[in-house]
């Protein structure tokens, strides 16, 4: 990560930690709505790689706030939501790992049971997939100058992939937590409820699958491969 992005992330962590209790005001005051605005227009001049990093932090710390809407124009809000989802899923995984390493049953930590290990491995794969999708979408958007139409395939693929991960990630996170994860007090619901909400936001699975499916049908079988390779590496 570049030094500039690292500084940006440090700021984001501080601001979103505050915003988690204070609401969106600190985020607005810190100028995050200017993140993607060019420097000539008085903005921060960030790229989508920066936005992805900031939005993931928002997804971890303040997933209830409308940060995607604050940072991105409408056509890019599905992309922004994918980044928030990646952050929230990473947090659900982190909470789950911490919990199973601490909670003891049958005389040992839950994480020592193979069934629990295998569940968390499944969950981790989903989280990595969404993180990869968010990062690859960011790379595409930066290549095409944040043009949502030129990234239509990637936006649809990444949002659909993230939507489909929600079911697996929320189910396993809650399962390994037991009853404590079902309480209002414990942190897990602060990411799992937003994840459930985001699955519908800016298009549910059916919407994106149809949209992507028709696009791909138009390309043809061989054409899909040619399009994928022409659009990146």
């Amino acid at each position: 990560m570049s030094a500039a992005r690292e500084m940006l992330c440090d700021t984001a962590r501080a601001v979103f930690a505050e915003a988690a209790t204070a609401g969106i005001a600190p985020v607005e005051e810190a100028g995050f709505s200017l993140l993607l605005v060019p420097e000539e227009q008085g903005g921060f001049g960030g790229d989508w790689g920066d936005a992805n990093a900031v939005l993931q932090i928002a997804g971890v710390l303040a997933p209830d706030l409308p940060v995607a809407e604050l940072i991105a124009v409408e056509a890019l809000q599905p992309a922004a939501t994918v980044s928030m989802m990646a952050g929230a899923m990473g947090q659900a995984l982190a909470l789950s790992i911490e919990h199973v390493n601490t909670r003891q049953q049958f005389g040992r930590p839950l994480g020592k049971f193979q069934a629990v290990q295998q569940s968390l491995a499944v969950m981790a794969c989903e989280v990595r997939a969404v993180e990869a999708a968010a990062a690859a979408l960011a790379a595409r958007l930066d290549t095409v100058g944040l043009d949502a139409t030129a990234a239509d395939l990637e936006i649809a693929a990444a949002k659909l992939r993230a939507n489909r991960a929600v079911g697996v990630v929320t189910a396993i996170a809650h399962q390994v937590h037991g009853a404590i994860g079902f309480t209002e007090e414990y942190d897990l619901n602060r990411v799992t409820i937003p994840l459930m909400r985001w699955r519908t936001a800016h298009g549910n699975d059916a919407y994106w699958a149809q949209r992507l499916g028709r696009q791909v049908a138009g390309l043809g079988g061989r054409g899909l491969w040619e399009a994928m390779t022409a659009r990146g590496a």
Partner: protein
Amino acid sequence: MQGFALYPFDPPGDIAALRADLRSWLAVNQPQGDVVARANCWASFDADFSHALGAAGYVGMTLPKRYGGGDRHPLERYVVIEELLAAGAPVGAHWIADRQTGPLILRYGSEEQRQRYLPGIAKGELYACIGLSEPGAGSDLAGVRTTARETAEGWRINGQKIWTTGAHFSHIMLALVRTEEGSERNAGLSQLLIDLDTPGIAILPIIDMAGHHDFNEVFFDDVLVPHGALVGERGQGWKQVTAELGLERSGPERYLSSHALFVALIDAAGPEPAPAIATLIGELAAEMWTLRQLSMSTAAKLAAGEDPMVEASVVKELGNAFEQDMPRRVQAIVDCGWGDEDDLAKLLRALLIASPSFSLRGGTREVIRGIIARGLGLR
């Protein structure tokens, strides 16, 4: 495991030109016949094709020129491999030699072994098999019992390997054997490079449930190989094998085994598919796109000299699930009889039958998840 950042996939040279050259070469040289051979095509044996591919410079690409290789960057090889698999090219004959055995000989082998084996591998003419599994050592590979004892004349090998893909057409086997008497588990193991025409070796076919002869039982009855057959260090076999498996788990072959079926599905659906088919195509495309990003990132990390053991396992786990689910999901939705003879039906049947093996070969699903769990700090 820290949050995942995509490792930049940045091969040197003109990658678009490399793809275009290979695509034109395939248009002329790829056998047009059997559509089923295009599915799971890294198991399709065609020595003529491998030979021609080698002559065109697409085998042994990363090996040094002095051993007949192409001195190309690993990511250039990656691009070539994904093109071959996406086209359904029959790369099975040289597959293991090119992917694993060649790089392993280069890394751990003696100068003599390199000169002897690498040029043939790069030509697409010398084939290799992997001698790991035994009847009592499957997932629990440290249970290897085949022994090799050092004598004045060389190594004397006794024991049995099983599930050895391609042993019947391979020239060499890279075998994991127990070289220290009384050693247990992963200590005392070494790798030997065995010429398969050595007396005392019996190779017996095992026919798989698709009716194919891909894998074998291999018996060693007092087989004598020279001292120079040892690869790398005596007693370091376990470490070397683990490194070898890293090369095996994250390539494009982990999500492209069923690609021919996806192509056929899209073509059969036409430009304006029914909603249910469009949905399926969209879901499969999203998964494939994501897997490609994960696989490329892992390849880039490998190429940079890092050890992405966990990422590689994630690619294998998600990739196997994808290529295994695809035929089942296609079957659930397309109108296609078991005995139909159109391309889609033939591919579907072949892949439904072949796909249970996808999450077994190269490490079972449960073992792979165990590796990921270790990466998460749970073991």
